[in-house]
């Protein structure tokens, strides 16, 4: 380290915000939960940054519903096997014609997220991003803070 005065780096970033004084946004990422294998499932634990913003139960309910929807999309059952066998018999050309079960559920998920954003998250200054836009890796939650002057987090 150089001999200059150590910079309080976190505060440094906030001082930049002070200059502009717009609404600040930061992001929290809910990572995948791989304890059950490679199926799409997200961790339900409420991150510390959101504790002041949203009720833990509400958050867990949202994530759990999303997990259930993804499980429904990836479920191995009669319907998916039928789709798979039919696809094989037609040399997979049906994938060009019809919408698969997975795609239908993804649309359902997109509608659910939009609905949750409108009803629950936007009033609290939060925004859920559809994990599909992040390659199903994370659920990105953007936190909007109203023009806080130097308060930071």
């Amino acid at each position: 380290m150089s001999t200059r005065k150590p910079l309080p780096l976190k505060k440094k970033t906030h001082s930049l915000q002070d200059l502009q004084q717009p609404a600040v946004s930061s992001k929290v990422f809910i990572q995948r939960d791989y304890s059950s294998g490679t199926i799409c499932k997200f961790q339900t634990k409420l991150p510390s940054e959101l504790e002041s913003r949203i009720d833990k139960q509400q958050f867990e309910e949202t994530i759990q519903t999303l997990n259930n929807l993804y499980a429904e999309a990836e479920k191995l059952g009669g319907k998916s096997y039928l789709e798979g066998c039919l696809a094989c018999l037609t040399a997979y050309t049906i994938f060009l014609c019809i919408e698969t079960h997975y795609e239908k559920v993804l649309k359902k998920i997109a509608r659910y997220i939009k609905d949750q954003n409108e009803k629950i998250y936007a009033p609290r200054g939060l925004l859920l991003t559809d994990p599909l836009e992040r390659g199903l890796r994370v659920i990105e939650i953007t936190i909007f803070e109203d023009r806080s002057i130097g308060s930071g987090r």
Partner: protein
Amino acid sequence: MRNCEYQQIDPRTLTVTPSTAQNQTEKKSQPVRRKWEVFPGKNRFFCDGRIMLARQSGVLPLTLGLIVVTCGLFFAFDCPFLVHHLTVFIPVIAAVLFVFVTISLLWTSFTDPGILPRATPDEAADIEKQIDTSGSSTYRPPPRTKEILINQQVVKLKYCFTCKMFRPPRTSHCSLCDNCVERFDHHCPWVGNCVGKRNYRFFYSFIISLSFLTSFIFGCVITHITLRSQAGKSLVQSIQESPASVVELVICFFSIWSILGLSGFHTYLVASNLTTNEDIKGSWSGKRGAEDSGNPYSYNNIITNCCATLCGPMPPSLIDRRGFVPPDEAVPAASASEIELPLFTAKNDAHRCTQSTKDVLERMVHSSDIPGLCPHGAPKTTPLGLEVPSLPAPSMEPSPSALCSQQHAHQPAPLPCTQFSRSREKDSVQSINPAFRLALPSPSLSRTSLILGDTPDIGFVLRP
């Protein structure tokens, strides 16, 4: 301009000029592009993003050529004789098999194998935050791994330096295509693409149907020559009358060994829910002695394993090739690239940092508080730049099947950071901010707030 800990910005490059301000408006008026045009991996796209191939198409033309030529010769020279002497169903069956093989091959080659899009700068910064690098800038940080428990089995997730994320289980980075591919099996040069989660079933259909096709043609040609020589002619005479049959025989004979072997091998993999990558690395075998007990992904039932792999639901393509790049991402490219800076070699960073810092300056109201934005992680990045070649590289052993030279992921890229810095610009364009696409509370939530929103991450990166 104060001296930075890592690298000094040349103050002369930081002048805010009217031309740079103009660049902003120019970027705004850039034509809207589709995401495939800014895709950072080494892939080629056709039909406006509908079809994709690896950059090196390998021997795909040869594969197609061999199949077409062999079947063409068969239909032209052997079928007339066989239809006359046996049955009309022979060319019918051959035609059905030929169509199935060709379509499966094209599906395998042109489908997204399950490419994972690279992490956005925000995600990457968040992950960096969580990794404890314990600050020593001169010491090369250890390879980043994370252990998780899957079905009571410990699995190590590795950090991908190119894609800037912890790879999900069974995901591997293909150095030829420069992408992380889910459920990575192998990169097949015969098909000219990686084989992964989304196109494994097509690949399997291809090799199974090709086995049937080559066996069928081989059998028919043998029958043809035998029938000819039975009609009072010698074998040599029969061959002279139908020389094309010999060509087909030779092609089929050599193909059958490799194709049947490959089919058998992949049938074993499907039945035990393994990938070629895992089998060759011996990830699950030998750990507990028993066959399937080590594999946490296996359903321990052959039928279920087969159904899950081949008939399971078709996952969507995650890279959204034909989506449009949101226009407001072109401008935050500079700020996003600041966050990515600490992860790359200093050489390329120096130029980019000054460039991006210049852009930041344009947005800030001629702020003097610039040093805080100097995230030249030069000591930090150089080790990373060196580290990629030394990532645990499993041996590049040839696969059991001679036909498909199955190349595994961890070939160190010679200049990973240079390549990535080239693609970083494209990457940063991809940093999606749907918050700004949806209705925002205040119209002042512009790119500036995006930058400011990112700076906490820079702050963390700078933490010694």
